[in-house]
């Protein structure tokens, strides 16, 4: 079996005349944590949406562990080990934290939820309806829902959005730790460069729907095109 856990080939997505993704190729090795960066409007969220099945791509293919899942629904992709979190918190407001994690676990053969709850510091909030917990807790819950069942491929869309610097680093550390322990392949969209450089093995750069570059943190930092287009003001 190939060691590429997640692959997108020639992914293209259009909204009317606007091209959000232009023949994007991406290949992430098993167990790798790949960062996905780029300016606003670069197509990062769109790429995640296409890879996860939330959006249809006009052209190109998506492969999970070598299997072509291009035509599959999000439900079906979950069964093949792909999970995702959301930039705008996407939880179940009227279920308690524990209830929704249970619902998540029933879909993946009754996976253990205690571990996820502990790792993400949600154990104390088990009986609270999700609508009543803090924003930071909700972000972690959003992530927890994706982690239940130890997915083999994890797509994260700005998991630290709206969190304080401290919260972001804590989250990043937890992510790195879990990903390494569980051998999860991660594709992480993130604006916070510190977070990206601290946990990612490699980084892909998107700009205007096209791939601008890909490499290790050091390589990307040094890449003049990338710096000019994006990192100049960030890193």
């Amino acid at each position, binding site marked *: 079996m190939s060691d590429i856990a997640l692959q997108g080939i020639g992914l293209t997505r259009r909204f009317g005349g606007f091209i959000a993704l232009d023949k994007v190729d991406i290949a992430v090795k098993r167990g790798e944590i790949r960062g996905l960066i780029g300016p606003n409007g670069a197509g990062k969220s769109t790429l995640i949406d296409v890879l*996860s099945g*939330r959006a249809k791509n006009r052209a190109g293919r998506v492969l999970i562990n070598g299997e072509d899942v291009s035509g599959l*629904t*999000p*439900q079906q992709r*979950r*069964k093949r080990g792909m*999970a*995702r979190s*959301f930039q705008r918190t*996407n*939880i*179940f*407001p*009227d*279920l*308690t934290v524990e*209830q*929704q994690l*249970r*619902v*998540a676990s*029933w*879909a*993946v053969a009754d996976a253990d939820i205690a571990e996820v709850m502990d790792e993400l510091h949600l154990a104390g909030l088990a*009986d609270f*309806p999700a*609508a009543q917990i803090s924003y930071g807790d909700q972000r972690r819950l959003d992530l927890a*829902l*994706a982690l239940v069942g130890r997915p083999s491929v994890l797509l994260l869309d700005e998991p630290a959005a709206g969190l304080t610097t401290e919260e972001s680093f804590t989250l990043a550390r937890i992510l790195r730790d879990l990903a390494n322990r569980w051998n999860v392949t991660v594709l992480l969209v993130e604006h916070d460069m510190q977070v990206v450089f601290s946990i990612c093995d490699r980084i892909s750069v998107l700009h205007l729907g096209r791939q601008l570059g890909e490499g290790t943190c050091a390589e990307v930092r040094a890449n003049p095109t990338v710096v000019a287009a994006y990192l100049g003001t960030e890193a």
Partner: protein
Amino acid sequence: MSTLAHDAVRYAKKPRGTSATAVLLLAGAVALLAGFALPWIAPSKLAMSLFAQALFDALLATSVGFLFLQNGRVSFGQAAFSGLGSYAFGVLVARNLVGAEAALLVALLLPTALAFLLGLVIARVSGVAHAMLTLAVGQALYEVAFRWRELAKGDDGMSFDLPARIFGVSARGLQDPAVMVVLAWSILVIVLVGLALFARSRTGMVAAAIRDNEERARFLGYSTTLPRALVYAIAAFVAALAGVLQASYNGYIAPQMFHWTVSGFALIMAIIGGAKFIIGPAVGAVALFYIKDFAGQVAEYWPAIVGGALVIVTLTMPQGIIGLADLLWRRSARR
């Protein structure tokens, strides 16, 4: 999901574990037993008859409320399913097409199956569009029943005699107020307990999750159409029960049973009673039934009173009467 449904279920009780299930079953058993005492408690046959009819309303209101609770959908057409139950039973019995037991089975399963299919098809439709669609369903059936004279005399409605025996016992007893009131009460209790158990089962929780956030449920790996359709089916089954009981008690079916105002009133009962609690709609229905009965002279203006009550409750008490009681109970418990 609509913000209205969000508000409605925000404070739904979440009892923990098996002890709560035991309490639920125990409460149900007690209620069932209490039901058998009704013929002795009730002051007269008339009182029993009235209560029985209030219970029919309660079942239909429960159907509406359950759909709202588990699917987050407002239906203006549950009377379509109670009407179907009534008509299926009435027509099959009147024409002696099948045995009494089979007629009952068909009367209960036909609306359920239809609702399931409809649920599959309209799973994606929510909010006001859903209200309009269910309205149209009920009315379409009303129109059909109205015009199809060969079926059941159309507009005039049709009386029919109950079969002699059903399940080995005399069926005529169904029209005895004492028998019907106990039967209707028992069925209502069993339905309420059953729905409560469903809500706490895996399927029920998954349905609740889908209600809360359909998209995320999909990303967790769930097909969202089937659970929704199942909830439609269960709700229709409860409505069909109401229809069959009513038809057999009165020995009469009429197109009016499908009318959207019947659905609308059931919806009002559910809202006033509080749809976020399984028992709320039933309480609302019984309350409204007796208020109407009590209102006697002003019964002419009853629709306006109910309409006014709906407006007031909708604007000021989103949790309905039961919700209000629950809120007050919580406040006093905190002191």
